[in-house]
C-alpha cells in the first residue's frame, strides 16, 4: 500500500506543465499536472497504469512554479513507484539507484582502478547496453585518500567547548568530490565548529526513488531520519553540501513515506551554503578579509536548491567576496537532473533541456561556473566545457 496525500490544492491551472523542461522537450510526457495531481485522483481509485510518468526527471520545476504549493513531483515519484510495482526495474535504474552502495563498497579501492574500470571503452559499451548513454558524463572517483579523509575527518584538538555540526556529505561528495566536503569542514572549523561525519548516514535515497525503488529508499529514509533525530536532539545541526540530499532528508521524507514506515520525527537538514551564509551574517566568518578575486563567475542555482525554498544562498554569499563578479545565469534546469540525462532515451531530452542553460553560461563570458549540485556541475562541464566549482570551495579558497 502506497502512501497517499491530498491533491486538493491543485486548481488544474497548467502553470507546472508550462514550466516543465521535460514536457518542453518531448510530447511523450503528459506533463506534471496530468501525471501528478490529476491522475492522483484516479490512483486513489485504483488505477496505476500510466506509463508516461516514466518521463518525469524529478527536477521539481513543477513544484517551484506551482502557484498553489502542490508538491507535484512527489505525486509523480509516488506514481512511478506504483506504476513500477510488479514490473522489472531497468538495470540502468538499478545501477544509478544503488550507486551510493557501490561507492561505499569501493571505498578501499584506488580511484584509477575504479575510473578505468568504469570508463574504458568496453565498459562504456557495456553500460550503454544496460541503459546508460555512451555520450553521458560519468563522474570520476576521487583519490582514495581524500575519500577516506572525508569519511573520518581528523579531529583537531582545540581549546574550549566548541559547537558541533554534523556533515551529511551525500554520495556525490563522498565518492567523487570529497574536496568539497573538506572545504566545508575548513569553513566550519574556521567559524569555530567541530565537524563530525556520522557513519550512520547512508545514501539519501533520491536515486532509488527516481528509479522507482521505493522500498529501498524507505529503508534508507528510516536510517537517516533516525540519525538526524538523534543529532537534532543533542542540539547538533545537520548540514549537507548537496541540495538534493538536504531536500530529500529534510523535506521530502515526510511527503513520500508515511510516519509509520520511517519512525523518527522529522529533523531539519541545512543546505551547506545557506548554513555558511547564516554564519557570515552572524559574523562567525568574516568574508571581507578574503583575498580579493577579480575573476568573473557564472552562478547556476540547481533546481533542487530552488526547491528548498531558501533563496540563492550561494549567490548571496559569493557576492560578498571583495571584487568578485558573479552573474546569476538563471536559465533553468541543466538537463542531467541527477542521473536522468545519463539514461539512454533520456539523453536527448536532457541535452535539449540543458541547451538553454549552456548557451546562457556561454553568453555570460565567464570561465568558471559555480553551482551547489554535483550533478549540475558535471552536466555543465559536459555541456559547456567550462570548469565548475562548489561555491563553498571558492569561498574556502579565498579565505585560506
Amino acid at each position, binding site marked *: 500500500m502506497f502512501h497517499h496525500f491530498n491533491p486538493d490544492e491543485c486548481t488544474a491551472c497548467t502553470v507546472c506543465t508550462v514550466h516543465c523542461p521535460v514536457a518542453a522537450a518531448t510530447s*511523450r510526457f503528459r506533463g506534471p499536472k*496530468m501525471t501528478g495531481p490529476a491522475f492522483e485522483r484516479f490512483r486513489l*481509485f485504483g*488505477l496505476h*497504469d500510466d506509463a*508516461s510518468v516514466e518521463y518525469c526527471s524529478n527536477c521539481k520545476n513543477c513544484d*517551484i512554479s506551482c*502557484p498553489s504549493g502542490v508538491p507535484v513531483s512527489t505525486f509523480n515519484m509516488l506514481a512511478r513507484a506504483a506504476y513500477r510495482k510488479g514490473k522489472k526495474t531497468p538495470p540502468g535504474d538499478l545501477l544509478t539507484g544503488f550507486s551510493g552502495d557501490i561507492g561505499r563498497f569501493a571505498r578501499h579501492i584506488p580511484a584509477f582502478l575504479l575510473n578505468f574500470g568504469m570508463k574504458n571503452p568496453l565498459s562504456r559499451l557495456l553500460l550503454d547496453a544496460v541503459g546508460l548513454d555512451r555520450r553521458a558524463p560519468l563522474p570520476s572517483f576521487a583519490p582514495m585518500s581524500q575519500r577516506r579523509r572525508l569519511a573520518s575527518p581528523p579531529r583537531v584538538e582545540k581549546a574550549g567547548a566548541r559547537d558541533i555540526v554534523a556533515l551529511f556529505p551525500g554520495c556525490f561528495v563522498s565518492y567523487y568530490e570529497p574536496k568539497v566536503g573538506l572545504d566545508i569542514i575548513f569553513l566550519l572549523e574556521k567559524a569555530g565548529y567541530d565537524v563530525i561525519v556520522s557513519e550512520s548516514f547512508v545514501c539519501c535515497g533520491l536515486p532509488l526513488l527516481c528509479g522507482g525503488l521505493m522500498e529501498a529508499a524507505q529503508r534508507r529514509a528510516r536510517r537517516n531520519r533516525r540519525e538526524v533525530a538523534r543529532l537534532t536532539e543533542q542540539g547538533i545541526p545537520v548540514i549537507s553540501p548537496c541540495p538534493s540530499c538536504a531536500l530529500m532528508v529534510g523535506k521530502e521524507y515526510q511527503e513520500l513515506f508515511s510516519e509509520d514506515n520511517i519512525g523518527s520525527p522529522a529533523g531539519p537538514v541545512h543546505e551547506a551554503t545557506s548554513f555558511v551564509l547564516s554564519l557570515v551574517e552572524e559574523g562567525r566568518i568574516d568574508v571581507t578579509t578574503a583575498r580579493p578575486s577579480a575573476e568573473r563567475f557564472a552562478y547556476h542555482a540547481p533546481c533542487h536548491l530552488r526547491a528548498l525554498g531558501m533563496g540563492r544562498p550561494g*549567490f548571496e554569499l559569493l557576492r560578498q567576496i571583495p571584487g568578485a563578479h558573479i552573474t546569476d545565469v538563471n536559465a533553468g534546469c541543466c538537463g542531467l537532473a541527477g542521473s536522468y540525462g545519463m539514461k539512454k532515451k533520456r539523453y536527448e531530452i536532457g541535452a535539449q533541456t540543458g541547451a538553454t542553460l549552456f548557451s546562457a553560461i556561454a553568453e555570460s563570458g565567464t570561465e568558471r561556473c559555480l553551482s551547489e549540485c554535483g550533478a549540475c556541475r558535471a552536466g555543465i562541464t559536459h555541456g559547456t566545457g567550462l570548469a565548475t566549482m562548489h561555491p563553498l570551495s571558492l569561498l574556502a579558497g579565498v579565505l585560506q
Partner: protein
Amino acid sequence: MNGPTVVIVGGGATGAGMARDLAMRGIFCLLVEQGDLCAGASSRFHGLLHSGARYVVSDPEAARECVSENAVLRRIAPECIEETEGFFVRHAQDNPAWETCWTSACVRCGIAAVELDPKEAIRMEPALTSDVRAVYRVPDSAVDGFRMVCHNVMAAKRYGAKVQTYTRLTGIETENGRVSGVWTQCRGGGEKTFIPCDYVVNAAGAWAGETARLAGLDVSVSPDRGLLLAFNHRFTERVINRLRKPSDGDIFVPHGTVVIYGTTSVPVQHPDDISVEADEALRLLEDGETLFPRLRDYRILRAFAGTRPLYTPDAASGRAATRNFVILDHKEAGLQGMITVTGGKFTSFRLMAEKAADLLCSKLGVNIPCRTADEPLMPRPSKSLLRRARNVFPAGGSGLVAARLGEGLEDVIVHAEQRPWKKTLLCECELVTFAEFEAAAAQSSGLSLGDIRRRTRMGMGTCQGNFCALRACAALLEIDVPAVLSPRLMLEHFLEERWHGVRPLLWGRQLREVELERGIYAALLNLDEILPDALPACIPDDAGAVRPTEAPGCGERGNARYSSGRYDVVVVGAGLAGLTAALRIADRGGNVLLLASGAGVIAVSGGSIDLLGAVNGEIVSGDPFAWFDRLDPSHPYALIGACEAASAMDFIALKVGEAGLPLRALAKNRGNIWLPTAAGTLKPAFLISPGMSPQGLYVAETTAVVGLRGMKDFAPRLVARGLSENPLFTGKTFLPVILELPGRLQGGGRDVTALDIARFVEMPGGLDWLCGELSPLSSKTQALLLPPLLGLRDTAFIHEKLEKKLGLPVVEGVCPPPAVSGLRLQHALFRALGKAGVTIFDNVTVVRALVEGRFCRGLVVRQSGIQRIFSAKSYIIATGGFYGNGIASQPGQAVERIFNIPISVPQYPENWSRERFFSRKAHAFASLGVAVNRDLQAVDEEEEVLLHNVHFAGRILQGHDFATEKSGSGVAVVTGYAAGGKA
C-alpha cells in the same frame, strides 16, 4: 402506428426500471421525462447502494428489501456499481445503546455486520478519527445513479420501449372513469401532443403529487430536500456510515474520483426547490468533522441538493417518514388505468418496478414473469474490445470508460481509431476524450451541456469546467449537433449551473477555483460580452508605441536615493505587480530582492495589458484614463490617478520593449483595442504585442481562422461563428481552416497545446513548415487569425517574416491557459529584471513578518524547520488575492496572509456573491482586499497607516474587480509602478 400501451411518467430510476421491465415482457411502453434522464433525485443522492443496515431499526422491511436488491443489482449491473463495502462507525459521542439495538436488528434482518477492531479500521481508513469506539463492516456499495438509469433505458430501448426526454406531461385524458391518453409538450413550448394509451404509470418521484393532480387525484408526496457535498478526492475507500440514530450528515460514499457526503432533510414546498444554503452546508461540514477531523482541509467541488419523494399519507415528515415504497392503484379512487409508484429509495428501484409491472401485467392479462433480476443489464464487452479500448483511452481509464459507455463502447472505440486526434482529452480532470464526448453529444437533446456532463462526467472534476466547457462547445459545433441554443449560450448556462453548486461554498480552495474561472471566462475570454459600439478607427502601428509621459509632476525617475546596503526593498510576489514594482525600484537605482512563491499567473494569462474595459457594467469608450473619474474613490486607479497610471503604462512598454517584446497602444485618443479570442468574442486590452494587433481582421472581407488538428483550445469553427455573429463584423466572412500537425508533434501522448507549436515554430525548419501550410490560404483570404503560436522569444521577428512571406496580415488570438502570450510577457519581464540587476529568489514563501510598532523589520521564510529572515528598508507586498494566496479565506472571513491584516467582508455568506456568475456588476468577494491610502500603505478604518514601510500592489488591493472591469493586468502594472515609486 399504434400508440403505446403504457405511458410511464418520470425518467428516474423507477421509471427507467419500469420501462425495462415492461419492455422485457413485451409490453409497448413510452417513457416521458420533463428534463433529462435522471435529472431528479436519482442523480441527486449519495450514490449509495444500501446494504440495508441504515434502516434495520426504523424500517426493517425496507432493510430486508435492500439486502436482496443489493445482491441483485450487483449481479445484473456490475458496471454501475463499485464494490467498496461499508463501515458503520460509532464515535465516542454516539450512544452505545443504539449500537446494541442496531446489531440485534441487523441479525433479525439478515445483514452480515461484522465487527472490526477500531484500530484495524483506522489502519484501513487512515483519514478516520481516532475517537472510534466500534466499527462494523457491511456490504454497502457505491452506485452510479445516472449510469444505472441510462443503462436501464438503453436496455428498455433494446426491447422496443420509446423514450422522450424534455417532454412535460400537461394533461391526463379520461373517458368514463378510464384513462384514454396523455397530453405532452416539448420543453420550450410548441404544440401539445395527444398520446393515446391504456395505462399511465406515475413514477415521477417527488413530482408524483403534481402528476396525480393532472388526473384529479390526490397523492400525498412530500418533497424533502437533502443537501450533499462532493469532494475533490477519495479520502475514504469505503462507504462510511455513522452508527447512530439516522440523522443529518451520516454518510460518506466514495464514488469514482470523488467522495459524496450528506445529507440533510428539509421539507420543501415544491420538488423543484433544490436551492443550497450556505448555513446548511456549514452545519453539514461541522457534523462531518466528527468522523473525518480533516474534512475542512479537503476541497469541496460543489454542493447539490435533491428532493426525495416521501410518501406521507399520515402527515409524518422528514426522517420519521417511511422510506418504503408504495404502489397505488387509483382504481380505488375511481380512475381505471393509472397507478402511482412512489416513495422508496434508489436501491429498491428494480423491485418497485417489478411489483408495479406485475400489477399492470395482471390487468393486461400478460402472463410473462419478470426477468429483470436475471438478465444482465448490459452485455459484457469482449476481451478484444477492452484491449482496443486500452489504446484509445488514457492511463488505466479504459475499464472506467467501458463501464461508463455500456453498449456505446464499440462505436466510440471505432470513432477514435479512425480519427486518432479524437483521443485527445476534452476533460482532463475526469478523463473524457473527444471521442466519448461526441458519442454522448450525438445522443443528447442538444439543449444543454448538462446532458453530456451527466453521461460522461465531463466538467465534474477538479476544475469544474474551467478548461473543458469551452472545448465542449467547440466540439458540438464540430460534429454538427443540431443545437437548439447557440454554443455561447450553452456555455453560459453550463457555467451558471456550475456556479450554482459552488456559490454557497465561497471560501478557501473553492474560491480560488472560482477566481481562476473568472480569470479565464470573464477576464480572458470576455464571455460576459462587454462590447464596444464600434471598432476603434485607429489601430496601433509603428507609430503607436506609448511614449514616456514627461508631464510635470508625473512621478520622479532615476534618482538614486538608495544607499549601498544589502537590499533597499524586498518585493514579495512574482506576478505582474511585483515584477513591475521591482523593475521600477531598480530603475530608480534601488537594490531589490524579489521573492517569488510559484511562477505567478502571468505565464497562463493572455499577455496583454488590460487597463480598463468597463466601469460598473458600462463599456469604456475612448480614452480609458478619462474614465478614472467615474470609479469609486477607493479604487486603486482613483487613488493613484490617471497621470501616474499613464506613466506606468509608458514605463512597462518601455522596459518590456527593451527586453525584446514591443508593447503598443493606440496612437491617438488612447482607447482600448479589441482582441479576438478563442471563444469567438472580442476582449478589450490597452497594451498589446505586435502579433496580437487585430487591424488586419478589422479591414479584411474574408479572414481564415486557422486551427491545428487536435489542438483543443482554439477551435476555428467556434471562433468563426462567434465573430461572424458579432454585429461589428456584419458582412464579413470567417473561414474555419484546420491544419495537420507537424509529424514531430503527432501521437506523442500529451495533447498538443499552442505552446508546443510555438516551440516547434522556433526550431529549425519550424517557420518554413508554418509558411508552407499557410501559403495556400493567401489567395483566398485577406487576413489570418491564428492561436498564439509564433514562437516564444522572437515573436516580433517571426510575425514580421510570416506577414511578409504570405503578403497578408496575421493576427494571434487570445487563448485560454496554457497560452503562449502570457509566457512571452513573463520571459520578457524576467529578462528586463535580470538586466536591471534585480535579485530574484524563486519558490520562497513568506510565512509571516517581524513587526516593531508600525514598521516591518523583516520577512520570515520557513521551510522544513529552517528559518530565514529577509530584511530591507521597505517592503512591497504583491502576493495577489485569493488565487495568488495573498488573501486567505474561510467561511465568512478573509485575512491578508503575511501581516494578518483583517479584511472587512460582507456579513452574510450569501452577500459575498451575486445570483448569476456572469454578472456585469461585480461580485462582492471580487473586490475584497487590503484597504490602502494614496501611498498604497495599509490603513485601518480610521485611515491610520498600519505599517509605514510596507506598500501593497496588485490584486491584493481592495476596491477593484479584474474580471468585470477587465483591469487585472492594468491594476497590477499601475499599482506596482506606484508602489515601486514610493518604497
